[in-house]
Protein backbone atom coordinates (compact mmCIF):
# COMPACT_ATOMS: atom_id res chain seq x y z
CA UNK A 1 0.00 0.00 0.00
CA UNK A 2 2.95 2.34 0.58
CA UNK A 3 4.93 3.58 -2.36
CA UNK A 4 8.27 3.94 -0.65
CA UNK A 5 10.07 5.07 -3.76
CA UNK A 6 7.55 7.77 -4.58
CA UNK A 7 9.39 11.00 -5.12
CA UNK A 8 7.63 13.85 -3.33
CA UNK A 9 8.24 17.39 -4.54
CA UNK A 10 8.44 19.05 -1.13
CA UNK A 11 9.11 22.46 -2.61
CA UNK A 12 5.86 22.34 -4.52
CA UNK A 13 3.99 21.31 -1.38
CA UNK A 14 5.63 24.04 0.67
CA UNK A 15 4.68 26.57 -1.99
CA UNK A 16 1.06 25.43 -1.76
CA UNK A 17 1.05 25.96 1.99
CA UNK A 18 2.36 29.50 1.52
CA UNK A 19 -0.68 30.39 -0.60
CA UNK A 20 -3.90 31.80 0.91
CA UNK A 21 -6.65 29.34 1.84
CA UNK A 22 -8.89 29.97 -1.25
CA UNK A 23 -6.10 29.43 -3.76
CA UNK A 24 -5.02 26.17 -2.17
CA UNK A 25 -8.15 24.22 -3.12
CA UNK A 26 -7.47 24.48 -6.84
CA UNK A 27 -3.81 23.54 -6.31
CA UNK A 28 -4.59 20.53 -4.14
CA UNK A 29 -7.16 19.09 -6.53
CA UNK A 30 -4.69 17.77 -9.13
CA UNK A 31 -2.42 16.19 -6.50
CA UNK A 32 -1.93 12.44 -6.33
CA UNK A 33 -3.19 10.67 -3.18
CA UNK A 34 0.38 10.15 -1.98
CA UNK A 35 1.13 13.85 -2.40
CA UNK A 36 -2.00 14.82 -0.47
CA UNK A 37 -0.96 12.63 2.40
CA UNK A 38 2.51 14.20 2.40
CA UNK A 39 0.93 17.65 2.30
CA UNK A 40 -1.15 16.81 5.34
CA UNK A 41 1.95 15.61 7.18
CA UNK A 42 3.89 18.67 6.15
CA UNK A 43 1.12 20.89 7.43
CA UNK A 44 1.16 19.03 10.70
CA UNK A 45 4.93 19.32 11.03
CA UNK A 46 4.98 23.02 10.19
CA UNK A 47 1.92 24.02 12.16
CA UNK A 48 3.09 22.32 15.31
CA UNK A 49 4.27 25.30 17.34
CA UNK A 50 5.19 23.10 20.30
CA UNK A 51 7.49 20.95 18.23
CA UNK A 52 9.03 23.92 16.43
CA UNK A 53 9.54 25.66 19.79
CA UNK A 54 11.23 22.64 21.32
CA UNK A 55 13.51 22.32 18.30
CA UNK A 56 14.91 25.80 18.82
CA UNK A 57 16.14 24.99 22.33
CA UNK A 58 19.91 24.81 22.56
CA UNK A 59 20.65 21.55 24.35
CA UNK A 60 24.41 22.06 24.26
CA UNK A 61 24.14 25.50 25.81
CA UNK A 62 21.81 24.17 28.51
CA UNK A 63 24.22 21.35 29.34
CA UNK A 64 27.11 23.79 29.66
CA UNK A 65 25.06 26.10 31.85
CA UNK A 66 23.96 23.32 34.19
CA UNK A 67 26.97 21.01 34.22
CA UNK A 68 29.79 23.08 32.75
CA UNK A 69 31.62 23.04 36.09
CA UNK A 70 31.60 19.26 36.60
CA UNK A 71 34.10 18.23 33.94
CA UNK A 72 36.47 20.96 35.01
CA UNK A 73 36.68 20.22 38.73
CA UNK A 74 38.24 16.83 38.09
CA UNK A 75 41.52 18.29 36.80
CA UNK A 76 44.41 17.04 38.88
CA UNK A 77 47.79 18.72 38.76
CA UNK A 78 50.45 16.19 37.78
CA UNK A 79 53.46 18.24 38.51
CA UNK A 80 55.48 17.34 41.55
CA UNK A 81 57.45 20.09 43.28
CA UNK A 82 60.67 19.03 41.56
CA UNK A 83 59.15 20.17 38.28
CA UNK A 84 57.17 23.10 39.64
CA UNK A 85 59.17 25.50 37.48
CA UNK A 86 57.94 23.77 34.33
CA UNK A 87 54.45 24.71 35.22
CA UNK A 88 55.35 28.40 35.24
CA UNK A 89 57.24 28.06 32.00
CA UNK A 90 54.24 26.32 30.45
CA UNK A 91 51.89 28.98 31.83
CA UNK A 92 54.11 31.75 30.49
CA UNK A 93 54.29 30.02 27.08
CA UNK A 94 50.52 29.72 26.95
CA UNK A 95 50.10 33.36 27.92
CA UNK A 96 52.43 34.44 25.14
CA UNK A 97 50.68 32.17 22.66
CA UNK A 98 47.27 33.40 23.82
CA UNK A 99 48.44 36.98 23.37
CA UNK A 100 49.71 36.22 19.90
CA UNK A 101 46.50 34.39 19.10
CA UNK A 102 44.47 37.36 20.29
CA UNK A 103 46.41 39.71 18.03
CA UNK A 104 45.62 37.46 15.08
CA UNK A 105 42.06 36.90 16.23
CA UNK A 106 41.36 40.61 16.54
CA UNK A 107 41.61 41.08 12.81
CA UNK A 108 39.34 38.17 11.96
CA UNK A 109 35.90 38.96 10.65
CA UNK A 110 33.00 36.95 12.11
CA UNK A 111 35.05 34.24 13.76
CA UNK A 112 32.31 33.34 16.21
CA UNK A 113 30.17 31.23 13.89
CA UNK A 114 32.91 28.71 13.29
CA UNK A 115 34.06 28.46 16.89
CA UNK A 116 30.64 27.15 17.80
CA UNK A 117 30.83 24.53 15.12
CA UNK A 118 33.62 22.61 16.87
CA UNK A 119 31.47 22.29 19.98
CA UNK A 120 28.31 21.56 18.02
CA UNK A 121 30.01 19.28 15.55
CA UNK A 122 31.41 17.11 18.33
CA UNK A 123 28.62 17.49 20.86
CA UNK A 124 28.11 14.39 22.98
CA UNK A 125 31.01 12.61 21.33
CA UNK A 126 31.70 9.28 23.03
CA UNK A 127 34.16 6.55 22.06
CA UNK A 128 32.69 3.80 19.90
CA UNK A 129 33.60 0.81 22.07
CA UNK A 130 34.03 0.11 25.78
CA UNK A 131 36.77 -1.29 28.01
CA UNK A 132 36.56 -5.09 28.14
CA UNK A 133 37.93 -7.82 30.38
CA UNK A 134 38.27 -11.33 28.99
CA UNK A 135 38.30 -13.87 31.82
CA UNK A 136 40.14 -17.19 31.96
CA UNK A 137 37.00 -19.01 30.79
CA UNK A 138 36.79 -16.74 27.73
CA UNK A 139 33.87 -14.68 28.99
CA UNK A 140 33.85 -10.98 28.02
CA UNK A 141 32.84 -8.45 30.69
CA UNK A 142 32.35 -4.73 30.11
CA UNK A 143 34.51 -3.12 32.76
CA UNK A 144 32.20 -0.19 33.45
CA UNK A 145 29.50 -2.62 34.59
CA UNK A 146 31.95 -4.72 36.62
CA UNK A 147 31.52 -4.59 40.37
CA UNK A 148 32.97 -7.83 41.58
CA UNK A 149 34.10 -10.98 39.85
CA UNK A 150 35.78 -14.14 41.15
CA UNK A 151 38.12 -16.25 39.02
CA UNK A 152 38.15 -20.06 39.23
CA UNK A 153 41.16 -20.08 41.56
CA UNK A 154 39.44 -17.78 44.05
CA UNK A 155 41.19 -14.54 43.02
CA UNK A 156 38.69 -11.71 43.40
CA UNK A 157 38.52 -8.74 41.05
CA UNK A 158 36.76 -5.54 41.97
CA UNK A 159 36.71 -1.85 41.12
CA UNK A 160 38.32 0.47 43.65
CA UNK A 161 37.92 4.15 42.78
CA UNK A 162 38.07 3.38 39.09
CA UNK A 163 41.04 1.01 39.37
CA UNK A 164 40.56 -2.70 38.66
CA UNK A 165 42.09 -4.53 41.61
CA UNK A 166 43.09 -8.21 41.83
CA UNK A 167 43.22 -9.90 45.22
CA UNK A 168 44.73 -13.34 45.57
CA UNK A 169 42.66 -15.77 47.66
CA UNK A 170 44.07 -16.72 51.08
CA UNK A 171 46.36 -19.73 51.54
CA UNK A 172 43.68 -21.77 53.25
CA UNK A 173 41.72 -23.99 50.90
CA UNK A 174 38.13 -22.96 50.51
CA UNK A 175 35.72 -25.63 49.36
CA UNK A 176 34.65 -25.29 45.77
CA UNK A 177 37.74 -23.36 44.77
CA UNK A 178 40.33 -25.05 42.61
CA UNK A 179 43.75 -23.68 43.58
CA UNK A 180 45.50 -26.30 41.50
CA UNK A 181 44.18 -24.87 38.24
CA UNK A 182 47.00 -23.93 35.87
CA UNK A 183 47.93 -20.31 35.19
CA UNK A 184 44.63 -18.53 34.55
CA UNK A 185 45.11 -15.67 32.09
CA UNK A 186 43.00 -12.52 31.84
CA UNK A 187 43.04 -9.94 29.04
CA UNK A 188 42.15 -6.29 29.53
CA UNK A 189 41.35 -4.39 26.34
CA UNK A 190 41.30 -0.58 26.49
CA UNK A 191 39.91 0.84 23.21
CA UNK A 192 40.53 4.30 21.76
CA UNK A 193 39.04 7.02 23.93
CA UNK A 194 39.77 5.49 27.36
CA UNK A 195 42.45 4.98 30.01
CA UNK A 196 42.32 2.24 32.65
CA UNK A 197 44.39 1.53 35.74
CA UNK A 198 44.87 -1.91 37.21
CA UNK A 199 46.44 -3.49 40.31
CA UNK A 200 47.76 -7.01 39.65
CA UNK A 201 47.58 -9.72 42.33
CA UNK A 202 51.24 -9.09 43.33
CA UNK A 203 50.48 -5.39 43.99
CA UNK A 204 52.07 -4.11 40.76
CA UNK A 205 50.20 -1.08 39.39
CA UNK A 206 49.59 -0.71 35.66
CA UNK A 207 48.14 2.26 33.77
CA UNK A 208 46.97 1.40 30.27
CA UNK A 209 46.71 4.17 27.67
CA UNK A 210 44.04 4.30 24.94
CA UNK A 211 44.17 1.57 22.26
CA UNK A 212 46.18 -0.86 24.40
CA UNK A 213 45.82 -4.31 25.89
CA UNK A 214 47.48 -6.41 28.55
CA UNK A 215 47.48 -10.19 29.04
CA UNK A 216 48.44 -11.30 32.53
CA UNK A 217 48.08 -14.27 34.88
CA UNK A 218 45.44 -13.92 37.57
CA UNK A 219 48.08 -14.95 40.14
CA UNK A 220 51.86 -15.14 39.88
CA UNK A 221 53.00 -18.57 41.07
CA UNK A 222 55.78 -19.19 38.55
CA UNK A 223 59.39 -18.23 39.11
CA UNK A 224 58.85 -15.26 36.82
CA UNK A 225 56.08 -12.67 36.74
CA UNK A 226 55.33 -12.33 33.05
CA UNK A 227 52.75 -10.10 31.31
CA UNK A 228 52.26 -9.12 27.64
CA UNK A 229 51.29 -5.71 26.38
CA UNK A 230 50.37 -3.97 23.18
CA UNK A 231 50.10 -0.18 22.93
CA UNK A 232 51.24 1.95 25.84
CA UNK A 233 51.47 1.18 29.55
CA UNK A 234 53.10 2.60 32.66
CA UNK A 235 54.21 0.12 35.33
CA UNK A 236 54.96 0.52 39.01
CA UNK A 237 56.36 -2.92 39.75
CA UNK A 238 56.15 -4.29 43.29
CA UNK A 239 59.69 -5.32 44.35
CA UNK A 240 60.20 -9.09 44.50
CA UNK A 241 63.78 -10.30 44.11
CA UNK A 242 62.82 -13.98 43.83
CA UNK A 243 60.35 -13.33 41.00
CA UNK A 244 61.65 -11.05 38.27
CA UNK A 245 58.92 -9.10 36.44
CA UNK A 246 59.03 -9.38 32.65
CA UNK A 247 56.97 -7.37 30.20
CA UNK A 248 56.68 -8.82 26.69
CA UNK A 249 56.10 -6.00 24.22
CA UNK A 250 54.19 -6.58 20.98
CA UNK A 251 53.91 -3.82 18.38
CA UNK A 252 50.38 -3.21 17.11
CA UNK A 253 50.84 -5.03 13.83
CA UNK A 254 51.10 -8.38 15.63
CA UNK A 255 48.49 -10.18 17.67
CA UNK A 256 49.54 -10.79 21.25
CA UNK A 257 48.48 -14.42 21.19
CA UNK A 258 50.68 -17.04 19.61
CA UNK A 259 53.49 -14.76 18.46
CA UNK A 260 56.82 -14.13 20.06
CA UNK A 261 57.23 -10.62 21.43
CA UNK A 262 59.19 -7.88 19.64
CA UNK A 263 61.02 -7.11 22.87
CA UNK A 264 61.04 -7.81 26.58
CA UNK A 265 61.62 -5.55 29.56
CA UNK A 266 62.98 -7.29 32.64
CA UNK A 267 62.71 -5.56 36.01
CA UNK A 268 63.04 -6.21 39.73
CA UNK A 269 61.21 -3.29 41.31
CA UNK A 270 60.82 -0.11 39.38
CA UNK A 271 58.52 2.25 37.48
CA UNK A 272 58.72 2.70 33.74
CA UNK A 273 56.70 3.43 30.59
CA UNK A 274 56.47 1.30 27.45
CA UNK A 275 54.96 2.63 24.24
CA UNK A 276 54.58 0.41 21.19
CA UNK A 277 51.93 1.68 18.81
CA UNK A 278 53.86 1.67 15.56
CA UNK A 279 57.10 -0.01 14.53
CA UNK A 280 59.06 1.72 17.28
CA UNK A 281 59.08 0.65 20.92
CA UNK A 282 59.86 3.43 23.38
CA UNK A 283 60.86 2.32 26.87
CA UNK A 284 61.34 5.12 29.39
CA UNK A 285 62.58 4.54 32.92
CA UNK A 286 61.31 6.70 35.81
CA UNK A 287 62.89 4.97 38.82
CA UNK A 288 65.01 1.86 39.51
CA UNK A 289 66.60 -0.14 36.74
CA UNK A 290 65.41 -2.27 33.84
CA UNK A 291 66.96 -4.41 31.15
CA UNK A 292 65.55 -3.92 27.65
CA UNK A 293 65.87 -7.09 25.55
CA UNK A 294 64.85 -6.70 21.88
CA UNK A 295 64.12 -9.79 19.77
CA UNK A 296 67.09 -8.88 17.56
CA UNK A 297 70.10 -6.76 18.52
CA UNK A 298 71.77 -6.14 21.83
CA UNK A 299 70.17 -5.64 25.25
CA UNK A 300 70.31 -2.26 26.95
CA UNK A 301 70.46 -1.48 30.66
CA UNK A 302 68.46 1.66 31.48
CA UNK A 303 68.99 4.16 34.31
CA UNK A 304 66.35 6.70 35.42
CA UNK A 305 65.47 9.31 32.75
CA UNK A 306 66.88 7.07 30.03
CA UNK A 307 64.77 6.20 27.02
CA UNK A 308 65.53 3.48 24.52
CA UNK A 309 63.97 3.71 21.05
CA UNK A 310 63.92 0.35 19.32
CA UNK A 311 62.94 0.00 15.69
CA UNK A 312 61.40 -3.44 15.12
CA UNK A 313 61.95 -3.25 11.35
CA UNK A 314 65.65 -2.39 11.31
CA UNK A 315 66.49 -3.97 14.69
CA UNK A 316 68.38 -0.88 15.80
CA UNK A 317 68.08 0.86 19.13
CA UNK A 318 69.00 4.34 20.29
CA UNK A 319 69.52 5.34 23.91
CA UNK A 320 68.83 8.93 24.91
CA UNK A 321 68.37 11.12 27.96
CA UNK A 322 64.83 12.38 28.46
CA UNK A 323 62.62 13.70 31.21
CA UNK A 324 60.67 10.61 32.25
CA UNK A 325 57.91 12.74 33.84
CA UNK A 326 57.05 14.12 30.39
CA UNK A 327 56.59 10.63 28.99
CA UNK A 328 54.39 9.39 31.83
CA UNK A 329 52.20 12.50 32.17
CA UNK A 330 49.46 10.93 29.99
CA UNK A 331 48.12 8.90 32.91
CA UNK A 332 47.29 12.18 34.68
CA UNK A 333 45.62 13.72 31.62
CA UNK A 334 48.61 15.91 30.83
CA UNK A 335 50.39 16.21 27.53
CA UNK A 336 53.96 17.48 27.31
CA UNK A 337 55.06 18.25 23.77
CA UNK A 338 58.76 18.56 23.02
CA UNK A 339 59.09 19.31 19.34
CA UNK A 340 56.03 17.17 18.73
CA UNK A 341 54.81 17.43 15.15
CA UNK A 342 51.18 18.08 14.29
CA UNK A 343 51.09 14.61 12.67
CA UNK A 344 52.19 12.95 15.92
CA UNK A 345 49.75 15.08 17.91
CA UNK A 346 46.86 14.18 15.58
CA UNK A 347 47.65 10.47 15.99
CA UNK A 348 47.70 10.86 19.77
CA UNK A 349 44.37 12.72 19.80
CA UNK A 350 42.79 10.07 17.56
CA UNK A 351 43.65 7.40 20.10
CA UNK A 352 42.88 9.42 23.16
CA UNK A 353 39.42 10.58 22.04
CA UNK A 354 38.50 7.99 19.39
CA UNK A 355 38.13 10.58 16.64
CA UNK A 356 39.26 10.80 13.01
CA UNK A 357 41.63 13.58 12.04
CA UNK A 358 42.81 14.38 8.54
CA UNK A 359 44.85 17.20 7.04
CA UNK A 360 43.73 19.66 4.39
CA UNK A 361 47.36 20.24 3.49
CA UNK A 362 50.34 17.89 3.99
CA UNK A 363 52.62 20.73 5.08
CA UNK A 364 50.54 21.20 8.23
CA UNK A 365 51.78 17.83 9.48
CA UNK A 366 55.23 19.27 10.08
CA UNK A 367 54.18 22.09 12.40
CA UNK A 368 55.98 21.60 15.71
CA UNK A 369 54.63 22.11 19.20
CA UNK A 370 56.54 22.87 22.38
CA UNK A 371 53.97 23.17 25.13
CA UNK A 372 52.33 21.47 28.10
CA UNK A 373 48.58 21.10 27.87
CA UNK A 374 45.81 19.55 29.91
CA UNK A 375 44.01 16.77 28.04
CA UNK A 376 40.43 17.94 28.60
CA UNK A 377 37.67 15.34 29.04
CA UNK A 378 35.91 16.58 25.89
CA UNK A 379 37.70 16.54 22.55
CA UNK A 380 35.95 19.75 21.45
CA UNK A 381 37.51 21.72 24.33
CA UNK A 382 40.92 20.27 23.48
CA UNK A 383 40.66 21.40 19.84
CA UNK A 384 39.54 24.86 20.91
CA UNK A 385 42.57 25.15 23.20
CA UNK A 386 44.86 24.11 20.35
CA UNK A 387 43.27 26.68 18.05
CA UNK A 388 44.24 29.32 20.60
CA UNK A 389 47.86 28.80 19.60
CA UNK A 390 47.03 30.35 16.24
CA UNK A 391 48.96 27.71 14.29
CA UNK A 392 46.07 25.70 12.89
CA UNK A 393 42.30 25.60 12.97
CA UNK A 394 39.91 22.65 12.93
CA UNK A 395 36.89 22.07 10.74
CA UNK A 396 34.31 19.48 11.78
CA UNK A 397 32.01 17.77 9.34
CA UNK A 398 30.02 14.61 10.07
CA UNK A 399 32.11 14.15 13.25
CA UNK A 400 35.31 14.00 11.20
CA UNK A 401 37.97 16.56 12.03
CA UNK A 402 40.14 18.29 9.43
CA UNK A 403 43.24 20.30 10.28
CA UNK A 404 43.21 23.53 8.29
CA UNK A 405 45.69 26.37 7.92
CA UNK A 406 45.08 29.22 10.31
CA UNK A 407 43.62 32.20 8.43
CA UNK A 408 43.59 35.76 9.53
Amino acid at each position, binding site marked *: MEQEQFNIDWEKLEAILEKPEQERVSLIAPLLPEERKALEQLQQLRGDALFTGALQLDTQQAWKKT*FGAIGKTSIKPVWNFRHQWRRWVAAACLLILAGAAWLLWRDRPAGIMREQSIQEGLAGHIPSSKIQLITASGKTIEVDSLQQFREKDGTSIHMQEGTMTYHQAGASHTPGIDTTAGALMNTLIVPRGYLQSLVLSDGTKVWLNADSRIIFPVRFDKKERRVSIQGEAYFEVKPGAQQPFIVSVHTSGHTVQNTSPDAEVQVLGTSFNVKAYGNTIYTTLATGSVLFRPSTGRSVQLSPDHQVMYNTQSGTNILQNVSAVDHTAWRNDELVMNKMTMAELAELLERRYDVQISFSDESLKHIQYNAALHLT*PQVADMLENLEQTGLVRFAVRDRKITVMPYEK
Partner: protein
Amino acid sequence: MHISKAHDGPFSLASLDIREFESLFQQYYRWLCLLCFRITGNWNEAEDIVQDFFARCWQNRDSIAIRESWKAFAARSVKNAALNQIRKENIRHKHETASQHNTEAEQEDTGVEAEEEQRYLDLLAAIDRLPEQRRKIFILSRRPDMRYADIASLMGISVNTVKMHVRLSYQELRKVLNSALVFFYFFIK
Protein backbone atom coordinates in the same frame (compact mmCIF):
# COMPACT_ATOMS: atom_id res chain seq x y z
CA MET B 1 22.80 6.59 21.53
CA HIS B 2 24.39 3.52 23.05
CA ILE B 3 22.39 3.64 26.29
CA SER B 4 18.94 4.01 24.72
CA LYS B 5 18.20 0.35 25.20
CA ALA B 6 18.11 0.78 28.98
CA HIS B 7 15.47 3.51 29.00
CA ASP B 8 12.41 1.32 28.92
CA GLY B 9 13.33 -0.91 31.84
CA PRO B 10 14.44 -0.33 35.44
CA PHE B 11 17.29 2.12 35.43
CA SER B 12 20.10 3.11 37.74
CA LEU B 13 21.59 6.58 37.57
CA ALA B 14 24.40 5.59 39.94
CA SER B 15 26.10 3.49 37.27
CA LEU B 16 26.38 6.38 34.77
CA ASP B 17 29.53 8.39 34.28
CA ILE B 18 29.34 12.05 33.31
CA ARG B 19 29.61 11.31 29.59
CA GLU B 20 26.73 8.85 29.67
CA PHE B 21 24.72 11.26 31.78
CA GLU B 22 25.40 13.97 29.20
CA SER B 23 24.13 11.70 26.46
CA LEU B 24 20.95 11.15 28.50
CA PHE B 25 20.62 14.91 28.87
CA GLN B 26 21.04 15.41 25.16
CA GLN B 27 18.45 12.84 24.24
CA TYR B 28 15.76 14.02 26.60
CA TYR B 29 16.30 17.72 27.24
CA ARG B 30 14.12 19.12 24.46
CA TRP B 31 11.36 16.62 25.01
CA LEU B 32 11.15 17.27 28.76
CA CYS B 33 11.12 21.05 28.11
CA LEU B 34 8.25 20.49 25.70
CA LEU B 35 6.27 18.59 28.36
CA CYS B 36 6.84 21.44 30.84
CA PHE B 37 5.95 24.09 28.28
CA ARG B 38 2.55 22.48 27.78
CA ILE B 39 1.87 23.14 31.46
CA THR B 40 3.61 26.46 32.11
CA GLY B 41 3.30 28.03 28.65
CA ASN B 42 6.73 29.60 29.03
CA TRP B 43 9.92 28.22 27.45
CA ASN B 44 12.24 29.92 29.94
CA GLU B 45 10.41 28.45 32.90
CA ALA B 46 10.31 25.06 31.21
CA GLU B 47 14.08 25.13 30.64
CA ASP B 48 14.73 26.12 34.26
CA ILE B 49 12.59 23.25 35.55
CA VAL B 50 14.31 20.67 33.35
CA GLN B 51 17.83 21.93 34.10
CA ASP B 52 17.01 21.85 37.79
CA PHE B 53 15.69 18.30 37.44
CA PHE B 54 18.90 17.09 35.75
CA ALA B 55 21.08 18.88 38.31
CA ARG B 56 19.23 17.17 41.16
CA CYS B 57 19.42 13.79 39.41
CA TRP B 58 23.20 14.09 39.14
CA GLN B 59 23.66 15.30 42.71
CA ASN B 60 21.53 12.53 44.16
CA ARG B 61 22.29 9.84 41.60
CA ASP B 62 23.34 7.34 44.28
CA SER B 63 20.14 7.66 46.27
CA ILE B 64 17.50 7.91 43.53
CA ALA B 65 15.74 4.60 42.96
CA ILE B 66 13.86 4.51 39.67
CA ARG B 67 11.21 1.80 39.77
CA GLU B 68 9.58 2.57 36.44
CA SER B 69 11.54 3.45 33.28
CA TRP B 70 13.84 6.47 33.07
CA LYS B 71 11.47 8.01 30.53
CA ALA B 72 8.43 7.70 32.78
CA PHE B 73 10.38 8.85 35.81
CA ALA B 74 11.77 11.94 34.06
CA ALA B 75 8.40 12.88 32.53
CA ARG B 76 6.58 12.53 35.83
CA SER B 77 9.21 14.49 37.77
CA VAL B 78 9.29 17.51 35.46
CA LYS B 79 5.50 17.58 35.03
CA ASN B 80 5.03 17.63 38.79
CA ALA B 81 7.61 20.39 39.10
CA ALA B 82 5.80 22.37 36.40
CA LEU B 83 2.44 21.90 38.12
CA ASN B 84 3.92 23.05 41.43
CA GLN B 85 5.35 26.09 39.70
CA ILE B 86 1.91 26.97 38.33
CA ARG B 87 0.25 26.53 41.69
CA LYS B 88 2.78 28.82 43.32
CA GLU B 89 2.18 31.46 40.68
CA ASN B 90 -1.57 31.06 40.90
CA ILE B 91 -1.50 31.66 44.61
CA ARG B 92 0.68 34.69 44.06
CA HIS B 93 -1.58 36.14 41.37
CA LYS B 94 -4.83 35.03 42.98
CA HIS B 95 -6.12 33.59 39.74
CA GLU B 96 -6.88 30.31 41.37
CA THR B 97 -10.36 29.44 40.14
CA ALA B 98 -9.76 29.58 36.41
CA SER B 99 -6.45 27.74 36.15
CA GLN B 100 -6.82 25.19 38.90
CA HIS B 101 -9.34 23.49 36.71
CA ASN B 102 -6.65 23.14 34.11
CA THR B 103 -4.02 21.74 36.41
CA GLU B 104 -6.30 19.02 37.67
CA ALA B 105 -7.22 18.01 34.16
CA GLU B 106 -3.53 17.87 33.25
CA GLN B 107 -2.74 15.47 36.02
CA GLU B 108 -4.80 12.68 34.55
CA ASP B 109 -2.57 10.91 32.11
CA THR B 110 -4.80 9.79 29.29
CA GLY B 111 -3.73 7.29 26.69
CA VAL B 112 -4.01 9.93 23.95
CA GLU B 113 -1.66 12.24 25.80
CA ALA B 114 0.92 9.54 26.38
CA GLU B 115 0.74 8.61 22.70
CA GLU B 116 1.23 12.22 21.67
CA GLU B 117 4.22 12.57 23.99
CA GLN B 118 5.72 9.48 22.44
CA ARG B 119 5.21 10.99 19.00
CA TYR B 120 7.13 14.12 20.03
CA LEU B 121 9.90 11.99 21.48
CA ASP B 122 10.11 9.97 18.26
CA LEU B 123 10.18 13.10 16.11
CA LEU B 124 12.88 14.80 18.20
CA ALA B 125 14.91 11.58 18.17
CA ALA B 126 14.49 11.33 14.39
CA ILE B 127 15.81 14.87 14.06
CA ASP B 128 18.79 14.04 16.26
CA ARG B 129 19.55 11.14 13.95
CA LEU B 130 19.82 13.43 10.92
CA PRO B 131 23.38 14.15 9.82
CA GLU B 132 24.86 17.19 11.58
CA GLN B 133 24.63 19.68 8.72
CA ARG B 134 21.16 18.58 7.68
CA ARG B 135 19.84 18.81 11.22
CA LYS B 136 21.20 22.32 11.62
CA ILE B 137 19.61 23.42 8.36
CA PHE B 138 16.30 21.79 9.18
CA ILE B 139 16.11 23.42 12.61
CA LEU B 140 16.93 26.80 11.11
CA SER B 141 14.30 26.25 8.41
CA ARG B 142 11.62 25.85 11.11
CA ARG B 143 12.26 29.36 12.41
CA PRO B 144 9.67 31.81 11.11
CA ASP B 145 12.30 34.53 10.66
CA MET B 146 14.53 32.40 8.44
CA ARG B 147 14.06 32.06 4.70
CA TYR B 148 16.01 29.58 2.58
CA ALA B 149 18.18 32.41 1.25
CA ASP B 150 19.04 33.49 4.82
CA ILE B 151 20.05 29.95 5.77
CA ALA B 152 22.12 29.62 2.59
CA SER B 153 24.14 32.75 3.32
CA LEU B 154 24.50 31.87 7.01
CA MET B 155 25.85 28.40 6.29
CA GLY B 156 27.82 29.49 3.23
CA ILE B 157 26.03 27.08 0.87
CA SER B 158 23.69 27.45 -2.08
CA VAL B 159 19.92 27.80 -1.77
CA ASN B 160 19.55 24.57 -3.72
CA THR B 161 21.65 22.71 -1.16
CA VAL B 162 19.45 24.09 1.62
CA LYS B 163 16.38 22.90 -0.26
CA MET B 164 17.89 19.48 -0.75
CA HIS B 165 18.65 19.12 2.97
CA VAL B 166 15.14 20.22 3.98
CA ARG B 167 13.63 17.80 1.48
CA LEU B 168 15.72 14.90 2.75
CA SER B 169 14.81 15.82 6.34
CA TYR B 170 11.11 15.68 5.52
CA GLN B 171 11.56 12.30 3.90
CA GLU B 172 13.25 10.99 7.05
CA LEU B 173 10.67 12.47 9.44
CA ARG B 174 7.83 11.11 7.37
CA LYS B 175 8.77 7.60 8.39
CA VAL B 176 8.06 8.55 11.99
CA LEU B 177 4.92 10.49 11.08
CA ASN B 178 3.52 7.61 9.05
CA SER B 179 3.36 5.26 12.00
CA ALA B 180 2.07 8.00 14.31
CA LEU B 181 -0.68 9.04 11.90
CA VAL B 182 -2.02 5.52 11.61
CA PHE B 183 -2.82 5.75 15.28
CA PHE B 184 -4.48 9.13 15.05
CA TYR B 185 -6.80 8.13 12.23
CA PHE B 186 -7.77 5.01 14.07
CA PHE B 187 -8.61 7.03 17.14
CA ILE B 188 -10.76 9.57 15.35
CA LYS B 189 -12.91 6.84 13.84
